[in-house]
């Protein structure tokens, strides 16, 4: 009757290179409180949200950053697949107003793609500061596509952008594939291959080649490939010639749209960049940044001050009142499930909220600050040569540093690495030698009794990281990785950006991790109730004895598999009761840090790398953990220990 039919919301795909403010614009379009979790370092997974502004309602999809449709990394392939799959979606191409000549080649590819298209000319503030703001209206006229100037960090232009996206239509083909490239693709397009797929197939993209062969037939495809090789020599020759032709089109397009800048971005910024990039000054600065940002802020403030405050709250108020409330429950096991030593509230929620939340939140805050000001690509450049020895490239810095926050999230982010070999090595090192923030907090807490113990522990971790990385690089076949990266200008971090990034990561973390905390509590509770826990602990006792630890440490290792930091916390209790000496503590801390990753990280390894790799990493990590733990304990005792 009168019930108005709700129209299906439009779909908008956000597309653009890394570092042009794509995620910030996504936040502006969907609001900070959208139920979406955006993804780290770079948006690795396709992220969705709902935009309701300027009287429009649309599902917005944020895609991983890409420079061109000719994908190099897995994340670029993810973005392109989304683009080709969503044929009726509107594309919002976010370009860098200050570097239009670099952004527009992708715009031309998107025009050729044929989806309804709007260009968001972002970072207008940076372009204005340089006195080189582009003539947006003129650009729109030349491209034949609406162009809206935006500043994602302040929200400028976001409503007009939404309105333009709602009204967007497919562009006319004026700037599609230029001749003579179009002539070559025409044969395939006439056989109903997508023009963009045909272009990418001829440029050497395997995925698109398969697709085009499927649609247009093997004969037509082979003929086009042979013609290409006759004219341009190879797929690469074709790709370079086409990119060069597109660049010329872009330069012609931009005549009169951008004035030459009035001023350079300033001597001071370039001088600072020189300090950051020269190994002589850059490496000491890395040490300073790591010390203050991670050790003092995350370790001291997050893991120290905040954890103490929240733990006190639990011990004084929440624990006792939960225990009082559950005292009314008639069945003892049920009482234990809620408030026992492994209870959902007393163990699961308390660990999650009192220990992990403050540490992880401060870590993500610091990480977002470093990310937003543009420091991470510079760190990548500085460490590239060192990481090459381990079969990685500077690019791996981002997942590796993120691993100090959450190894599970970092394992997902290894997708940004280029080759399978790099992803494997990074996955192994993350599982083995990089302690996550929850674990770091507890381990450093245990070892705080002795500076020597902390030093030995840290040296062993660094040694294992380097040796295992080097061995993996030598053992795994494949080409050494290459390093290439755009260095975004150094910027003052935007508070809003930093808070959004921190908030979305903390939310992701809790959605992924809190259920596992609770599950771990239930498993431990059930294990104790059925006696399985005692039996499993009994089986571990000989191993634990062999590396010189008291039998009680066995249960700590068992919890360690459920959550690495549970295990560490178990040792914390042993140390407090004086059951472990300094040598024993160091042995235990080394073993538990190198020991198998938590269940969440294991599941992520299986999802990203397959069950075989996950099990292999598990076996390797367990062996190395116990071997190194035992060796360290033996060595300390052999030299007479320390007091």
């Amino acid at each position, binding site marked *: 009757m009168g019930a108005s039919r709700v129209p299906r919301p439009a779909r908008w795909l956000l597309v653009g290179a890394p570092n042009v403010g794509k995620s910030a614009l996504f936040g502006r379009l969907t609001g900070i409180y959208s139920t979406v979790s955006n993804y780290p370092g770079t948006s690795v997974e396709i992220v969705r949200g709902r935009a309701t502004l300027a009287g429009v309602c649309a599902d917005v999809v944020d895609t991983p950053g890409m420079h061109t449709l*000719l994908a190099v990394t897995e994340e670029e392939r993810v973005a392109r697949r989304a683009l080709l799959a969503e044929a009726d979606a509107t594309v919002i191409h976010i370009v860098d107003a200050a570097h239009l000549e*670099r952004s527009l080649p992708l715009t031309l590819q998107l025009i050729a793609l044929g989806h309804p298209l709007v260009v968001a000319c972002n970072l207008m503030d940076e372009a204005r500061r340089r006195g080189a703001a582009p003539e947006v209206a003129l650009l729109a006229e030349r491209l034949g596509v609406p162009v809206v100037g935006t500043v994602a960090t302040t929200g400028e232009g976001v409503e007009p952008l939404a309105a333009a996206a709602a009204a967007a239509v497919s562009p006319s083909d004026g700037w599609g594939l230029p001749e003579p490239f179009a002539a070559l693709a025409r044969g395939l397009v006439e056989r109903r291959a997508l023009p963009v797929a045909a272009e990418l197939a001829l440029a050497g993209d395997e995925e698109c080649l398969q697709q085009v062969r499927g649609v247009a037939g093997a004969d037509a495809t082979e003929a086009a490939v042979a013609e290409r090789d006759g004219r341009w020599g190879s797929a*690469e020759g074709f790709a370079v010639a086409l990119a060069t032709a597109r660049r010329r089109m872009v330069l012609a397009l931009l005549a009169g749209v951008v004035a030459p800048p009035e001023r350079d971005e300033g001597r001071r910024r370039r001088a600072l960049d020189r300090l950051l990039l020269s190994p002589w000054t850059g490496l000491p600065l890395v040490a300073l940044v790591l010390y203050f940002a991670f050790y003092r802020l995350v370790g001291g403030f997050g893991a120290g001050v905040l954890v103490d405050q929240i733990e006190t709250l639990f011990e004084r108020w929440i624990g006792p009142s939960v225990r009082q409330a559950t005292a009314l429950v008639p069945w003892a096991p049920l009482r234990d499930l809620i408030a026992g030593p492994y209870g959902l509230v007393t163990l699961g929620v308390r660990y999650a909220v009192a220990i992990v939340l403050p540490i992880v939140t401060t870590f993500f805050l610091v990480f977002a600050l470093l990310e937003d000001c543009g420091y991470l690509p510079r760190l990548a*450049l500085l460490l590239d040569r060192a990481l*090459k020895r381990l079969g990685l490239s*500077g690019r791996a810095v981002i997942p590796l540093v993120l691993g100090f926050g959450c190894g599970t999230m970092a394992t997902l982010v290894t997708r940004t690495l280029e080759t399978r070999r790099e992803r494997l090595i990074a996955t192994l090192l993350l599982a083995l030698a990089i302690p996550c923030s929850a674990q770091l907090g507890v381990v450093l807490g245990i070892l705080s009794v002795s500076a020597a113990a902390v030093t030995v522990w840290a040296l062993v971790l660094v040694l294992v990281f380097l040796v295992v990385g080097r061995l993996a690089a030598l053992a795994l076949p494949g080409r050494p990785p290459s*390093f*290439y990266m755009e*260095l975004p200008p150094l910027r003052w971090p935007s508070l809003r950006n930093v808070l959004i990034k921190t908030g979305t990561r903390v939310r992701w973390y809790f959605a992924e991790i809190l259920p596992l905390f609770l599950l771990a509590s239930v498993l431990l509770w059930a294990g104790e109730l059925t006696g399985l826990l005692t039996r499993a602990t009994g089986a571990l006792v000989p191993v634990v004895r062999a590396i010189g630890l008291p039998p009680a440490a066995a249960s700590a290792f068992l919890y360690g598999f459920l959550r690495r930091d549970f295990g560490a916390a178990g040792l914390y209790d042993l140390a407090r009761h004086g059951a472990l000496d300094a040598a024993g503590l160091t042995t235990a801390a080394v073993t538990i840090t190198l020991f198998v990753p938590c269940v969440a990280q294991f599941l992520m390894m299986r999802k990203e790398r397959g069950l075989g790799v996950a099990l292999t990493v598990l076996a390797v990590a367990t062996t190395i953990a116990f071997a190194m733990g035992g060796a360290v304990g033996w060595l300390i005792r052999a030299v007479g220990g320390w007091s």
Partner: protein
Amino acid sequence: MKCTMCGSASGCTGCPIGADFYVAQSLGGLEAGERAVVRHLDARRGADLRKLLALGLMPGVEVEVERRWPALVLRMGYATVALDAELADAVFVARAV
């Protein structure tokens, strides 16, 4: 500096003898502070070429070497990009005079 072939001092961009002729030199061989125009990419390098294209390195682009160590840092227009020596060896440039 003058061109050894035609004696012109105006550089290879807009070569006065009009030929597509220049002394090819690898990008990796440039010193810090030197400027050059990309002339061609070594097509034998296959997949590496896509990375160079993703960085915006293609024929006709002007670059200035900002530093060579620990990796090559180039200014291209107002963008700054970094790449390692192996990739830089696939880029051939004509040095600006």
